[in-house]
């Protein structure tokens, strides 16, 4: 028998992403629930506040962003939970591939399953809030950068709370304060776009935040996974 060749870093990363995407595909409910939640929360606001168009136009960016934040949070808890339950988390930690890379792979898969569909659906919600068409582009860009940052931040929180009995409520408490800058810049930039103001500063900030999270979060998540699983 020939010795199997060691997989490259890229192969390991791709295998983790592929596996998580396949799992999500087999259980479409996990993927759709946050999306329905996002749509539901956005529906609640006009019903609670009243159908006046001007008000909705003002509220739109904020509501879309808060709903996005909450629905990403909703899906975070399951990020490492099923891996912990079936024991594959131990295998991932023991594997010769670097753990930060695996954590990054899982985060990428999480974003593709939870953040990305949200970005795709958001223009529909923006239209129902009568947001001007030009701002929808800005909203999609900021939501893309923002949901990536949220997935990355959330991966640290999910890794810290995996296996804890009160994990779900705790996770929100840990991640939400840290997510404030993303919310502030995301929602305010869309609001600025709606008021025909300059948006580049906000977009640059979100991009910078996303890069910062991308550089640090996988390492923090890997450290947290090792601690939670020792």
């Amino acid at each position, binding site marked *: 028998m020939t010795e199997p060749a060691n997989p490259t870093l890229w192969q390991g990363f791709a295998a983790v992403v592929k596996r998580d995407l396949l799992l999500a595909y087999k259980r479409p409910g996990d993927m759709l629930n946050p999306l329905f939640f996002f749509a539901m929360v956005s529906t609640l606001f006009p019903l609670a506040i009243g159908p006046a168009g001007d008000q909705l136009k003002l509220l739109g960016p904020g509501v879309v962003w808060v709903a996005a934040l909450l629905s990403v949070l909703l899906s975070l808890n399951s990020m490492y939970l099923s891996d912990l339950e079936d024991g594959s988390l131990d295998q991932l930690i023991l594997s010769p591939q670097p753990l930060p890379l695996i954590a990054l792979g899982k985060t990428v898969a999480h974003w593709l399953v939870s953040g990305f569909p949200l970005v795709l659906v958001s223009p529909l919600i923006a239209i129902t809030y009568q947001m001007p068409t030009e701002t929808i582009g800005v909203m999609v860009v900021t939501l893309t950068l923002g949901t990536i940052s949220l997935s990355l931040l959330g991966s*640290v929180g999910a890794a*810290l*709370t995996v296996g*804890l*009995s*009160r*994990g779900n409520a*705790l996770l929100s*408490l*840990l991640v*939400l*304060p*840290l997510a*404030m*800058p993303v919310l*502030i*810049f995301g929602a*305010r930039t869309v609001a*600025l776009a709606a008021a025909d103001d300059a948006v580049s500063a906000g977009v640059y*900030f979100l991009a910078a*935040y996303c890069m*910062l999270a991308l550089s*640090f979060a996988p390492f*923090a998540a890997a*450290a*947290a996974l090792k*601690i*939670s699983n*020792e």
Partner: protein
Amino acid sequence: MFRHMWIFLHKLASPPHFYGLAAKMIPWFYVSGLLLIAYGTIAGLFYAPADYQQGDAFRIIYVHVPAAYLSMMAYSIMAISAGIGLIWRMKLAHAVAAAAAPLGAWFTFLALATGSIWGRPMWGTWWEWGDPRLTSELIMLFLYFGYMSLRAAIDETSKADKASAVLILVGAVNVPIIHFSVEWWSSLHQGPTLVREGGPAIETAMLYPLLGMILGFTLFFGALLLARVRAEVLHRERRSRWVRNLILGESA
């Protein structure tokens, strides 16, 4: 010279040595802290002139400013000790971080409460979302709550230490970003802000009591922190020989 320093640090990190040393330091911290707070209170409330714009309402800064400063200070202490605890696996550092968290949360709450009481006569509202410092202080309070909840949720002490240390370090990277973004956010709000940056230079009769209060609060905080770390160390080492000897020695 360096050798002596290392020996001192090594000794400090050993729980029984720290336990004894802290016991000797605490009274000094209490006495000097309370003396300075007494000076600051008397001089600040009775002798400092009233502010020409704010009248007597400004006097709340004698509690507000030290509390707000300590809320940041406690977070920095926690972040530094968490880093030391993770890198050099020093258990005492983790105990310091754990002991500092409720104190930090309390000073943050105090800063929020006094800020809001001051806001009532000044802004006409208890809460002003347009003020960036109030908002970021509120987020600070949530960060403290998150830290304490995470600790409380993990039963095993060493695991709770490391997990909360990772959290506090991630938080420490985020704190400046949160402050900056809250400031940017509030600068977009319409309407005049009543708090002016760099207002009139503060008079020395107002300044000295304030400095006294800041130093006094810090020393008082130090005394409380040392006392809490002592209790924390005692609890963590409850199965060790030196604690047993200590208790047997005291009861004998």
